[in-house]
């Protein structure tokens, strides 16, 4: 049987279980509508403002960084799979390993740059704030 | 390598002047321009060529170097002088030097750029007359336009922008037409031509003409190209009815630009007509001789009539140029030794005379700040020498014997009268009538401005002309008289180069 059909079956099960639980709960649970219950929870205070808050720019920075590095793994996986075979086939080490090292080296230059320019730094120390302002 | 040296000196001089401070630019440019002037005189003295450059003549100072290959054709750096081009080169260098001198007074802003452009024009003008490869020639030909456009546009009179654009558009469109036509001709010549060298093309044209192109037959193609090129050059000359840019350009241009424009730039057109249309297309010349002659005569008379109606001295001189160029065309179309030779002689002569006239008008304008005939009278009182020279120039225009204008017009009429064109005597007679009108308007204008009581009211002193202006006019006058007294000074050389063309073309 095709692997992916099995996976599909599990996916079906994976969806059916929660949906089933929801249905059971739907039948069991009481419903007592009351407006104040539905208020947004803010530790008992009266909720203020909306949720469209402006959050730290760093969330975007790491997200962008992630996209780049994550895709890099996609390109590395085929190499990792083929590496041993390549060595077994007597392909010189430089040709088997060199491209990957170069690839990672370029990535690391990128990481170093992101590091140094503060892309992965969540909060700035007072001293950094000072130098930035000047 | 002498021609290259000539061009290089002017070009480098232009650059040096461009970066020089405004204060010394005028004197510096003058000093630099003396080098090509002297060099060209030396060329004149050392001239050893014979025959026509395009007709297997013996070229003087020839040099040729491969430049680039385009498809089946090669383009080369190919320069050399013959009896037609040498006098024009000398005319160019001398007029440029004098134009620089005559700019000292009127030009008082952005001098370094101004003189730089003048020298740049000089380099390209020399190139135009010396180049024997079509592309090289075309490069120089077009390169003249841009500085002239700027000279008129920047330092010109109140309507300079209009005049500059008009000049640029007219001449550029004309160039485009001419260029396209010539390229079509070269393609039409097929395999018999492998380069853009003019002598080679000329030979191919005379040895059978074009094979045809894109469905046009050889003869038709030749006729179309002839007409297109004639129109293209006619704008440059200019010939009625393509002359309207000229008065505007002249009136708005600063004096030195006018001197160069009338003195040399117009000759580019007639020179090109002679080199291309009248050398390469003898058959077409014969076919279209009557209309061309008619246009020439119309130019002569209509130009003169227009001049008669003007009250602006500069405009008068400008229109008279249209008229004079008509003579040149008449001489060319006559297709006899004297006709074509006279036309060439007239190019030089008119260059000198019109240069002189523009200078004189400029000197008067510098002093009085007006050019209107109606404003002035009795100028002879205030600036006797300058006015004297103006009168001398005007007589030159009218063809007073012993001045170059007389010789030129004599040659032309003589040549035209004996020409084989139908109605040749009639055309000649009509053209001669033009001289009467010329005399009429010049004398009329002079009488109003020069004589009588001085009555111009100004809040500034109108005094004598500066010595350097007078000196340069004297030089020109000297040349005019010299050519008038001894036309053989250049006429021998010219006829030597003309003969190969007109032999066999006699009709």
């Amino acid at each position, binding site marked *: 049987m095709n692997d992916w059909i099995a*996976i599909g079956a599990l996916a079906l099960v994976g969806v059916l279980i929660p949906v089933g639980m929801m249905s059971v709960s739907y039948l069991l649970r*009481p419903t007592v509508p009351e407006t104040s219950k539905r208020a947004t929870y803010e530790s008992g205070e009266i909720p203020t403002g909306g949720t469209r808050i402006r959050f730290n720019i760093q969330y975007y920075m790491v997200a962008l960084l992630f996209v780049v590095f994550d895709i890099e793994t996609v390109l590395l996986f085929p190499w990792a799979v083929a590496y041993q075979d390549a060595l077994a086939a007597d392909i010189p080490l430089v040709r088997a390993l060199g491209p990957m090292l170069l690839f990672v080296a370029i990535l690391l230059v990128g990481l170093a740059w992101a590091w140094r320019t503060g892309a992965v730094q969540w909060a700035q120390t007072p001293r950094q704030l000072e130098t930035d302002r000047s | 390598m002498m021609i290259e040296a000539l061009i290089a000196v002017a070009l480098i001089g232009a650059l040096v002047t461009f970066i020089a401070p405004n204060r010394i630019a005028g004197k510096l440019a003058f000093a630099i321009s003396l080098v090509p002037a002297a060099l060209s005189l030396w060329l004149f003295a050392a001239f050893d060529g014979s025959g026509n450059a395009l007709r297997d003549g013996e070229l003087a100072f020839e040099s040729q170097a491969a430049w680039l290959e385009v498809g089946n054709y090669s383009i080369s750096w190919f320069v050399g002088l013959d009896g037609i081009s040498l006098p024009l080169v000398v005319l160019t260098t001398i007029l440029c030097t004098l134009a620089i001198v005559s700019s000292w007074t009127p030009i008082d802003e952005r001098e370094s750029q101004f003189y730089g452009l003048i020298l740049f024009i000089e380099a390209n003008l020399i190139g135009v007359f010396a180049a024997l490869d079509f592309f090289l020639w075309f490069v120089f030909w077009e390169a003249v336009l841009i500085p002239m456009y700027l000279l008129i546009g920047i330092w010109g009179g109140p309507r300079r922008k209009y005049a500059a654009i008009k000049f640029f558009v007219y001449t550029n469109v004309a160039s485009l037409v001419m260029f396209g036509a010539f390229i079509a001709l070269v393609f039409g010549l097929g395999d018999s031509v492998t380069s853009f060298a003019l002598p080679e093309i000329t030979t191919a044209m005379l040895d059978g003409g074009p094979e045809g192109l894109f469905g046009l037959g050889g003869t038709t193609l030749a006729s179309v190209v002839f007409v297109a090129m004639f129109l293209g050059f006619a704008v440059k000359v200019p010939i009625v009815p393509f002359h309207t840019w000229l008065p505007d350009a002249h009136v708005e241009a600063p004096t030195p630009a006018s001197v160069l424009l009338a003195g040399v730039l117009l000759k580019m057109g007639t020179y090109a007509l002679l080199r291309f249309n009248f050398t390469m297309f003898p058959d077409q010349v014969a076919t279209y001789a009557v209309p061309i002659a008619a246009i020439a005569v119309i130019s002569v008379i209509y130009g003169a009539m227009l001049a008669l109606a003007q009250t602006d001295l500069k405009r008068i001189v400008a229109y008279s140029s249209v008229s004079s160029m008509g003579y040149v065309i008449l001489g060319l179309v006559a297709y006899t030794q004297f006709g074509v030779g006279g036309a060439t002689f007239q190019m030089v002569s008119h260059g000198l005379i019109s240069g002189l006239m523009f200078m004189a008008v400029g000197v008067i304008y510098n002093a009085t700040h007006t050019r209107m005939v109606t404003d002035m009278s009795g100028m002879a009182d205030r600036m006797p020498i300058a006015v004297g020279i103006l009168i001398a120039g005007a007589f030159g225009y009218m063809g007073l014997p012993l001045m170059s204008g007389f010789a030129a017009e004599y040659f032309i009429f003589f040549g035209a009268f004996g020409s084989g064109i139908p109605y040749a005597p009639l055309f000649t007679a009509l053209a001669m009538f033009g001289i009467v009108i010329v005399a009429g308007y010049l004398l009329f204008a002079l009488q109003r401005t020069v004589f009588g009581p001085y009555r111009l009211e100004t809040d500034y002193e109108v005094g004598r002309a500066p010595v350097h202006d007078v000196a340069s006019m004297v030089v020109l006058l000297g040349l005019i008289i010299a050519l008038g007294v001894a036309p053989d000074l250049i006429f021998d050389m010219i006829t030597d180069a003309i003969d190969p063309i007109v032999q066999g073309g006699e009709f």
Partner: protein
Amino acid sequence: MSGMASVPLQDTVLLPERLGNLTGLDQFGLAGELLATLIGAIFVGSLMLTMTALAGPWAKRKITASFTDRISINQIGPAGIGIIIADAVRMLSKELIVPENADRPAWDLAPIVVVSSALLGFAVIPMGNGIQLADPEVGLAYVFAVSGIASLGLVMAGYASANKYSMLGGLRAVAQNVAYEIPLVVTGMSVVIFAGTLQMGEIVAAQGETFVTIVGIDVPRWYALVNPFAFVLFLVANFAEVGRNPFDTPEAPTEIVAGYQTEYSSVYFVLIYLGEFLHIFLGGAIIATIFLGGPAGPVLPGIVWFIIKIWAVFFATQWLRSAVPRVRIDQLIEIGWKGLLVLAFANLVLTAVIVGLIA
């Protein structure tokens, strides 16, 4: 442990086919096969859910209590095990309170996404005794991929709740996931270098070979032994990936109440809660498979060893929960990007170089 290598640990016959044979369903052609597959899937799903149910309401409390020297649930059933049923009934019958302004479709969908993404991962895990639903060639990449979907569920939950705490929790979950996903995957890649394949079955089989023989005992080629550095890295990254202490900032009850699940109640809460535990087990399963030889082990059947191994990982998470303080969000991100990522790359490069030099 001797002789272990001779026992075929990995059945080439996968669970659906085996079930088909067993039940005779394979005689009914495609429909039968599909049915067998579905039964297999239900079996795997139930197995995992059972473990989660055991771990969530009961084992977790017990373990924590032991660490903090307390007595926890002991009333219902032996050692309080009946709490599982009690909690299930209690939670399922609670009223569902939908927060105002909630983005309903996303809010409803989030729990399902969290649960099913975790469940999906188990499809390719070889659990011993032939219990493996599928063994595609890209198994490891597939596991990483589906476990990554969970963070989508979390951010959906956080966003749809229209609550600032939830929002922050969801964002933190994403930031954390993205920060540790890469070290995780890159470290996993260093294992792939050894195995030369992404197929889970193959990886497990490769670990069956003998690594060294110490005093007559054949030590298997478990990658945790071959490359302990990678194992530790992977373990740490995995803790962060599943959001356990010391990396549980997305929930961080002292900072943002309960993070993305603040507004959830009733069965929705149960699902999210279950989903988290499923993720812990999935992480454990991955670790077991690629580092600990999968279901391999002496004496006991494979499935038992497998469960022991994943429970060991679960135990470790609970241990850390009690023993290690939570890191701040800024520290968390910086540890990920500046520490683990660099170490992961160093590990990858070193592994590759050493493997290349030895070969």
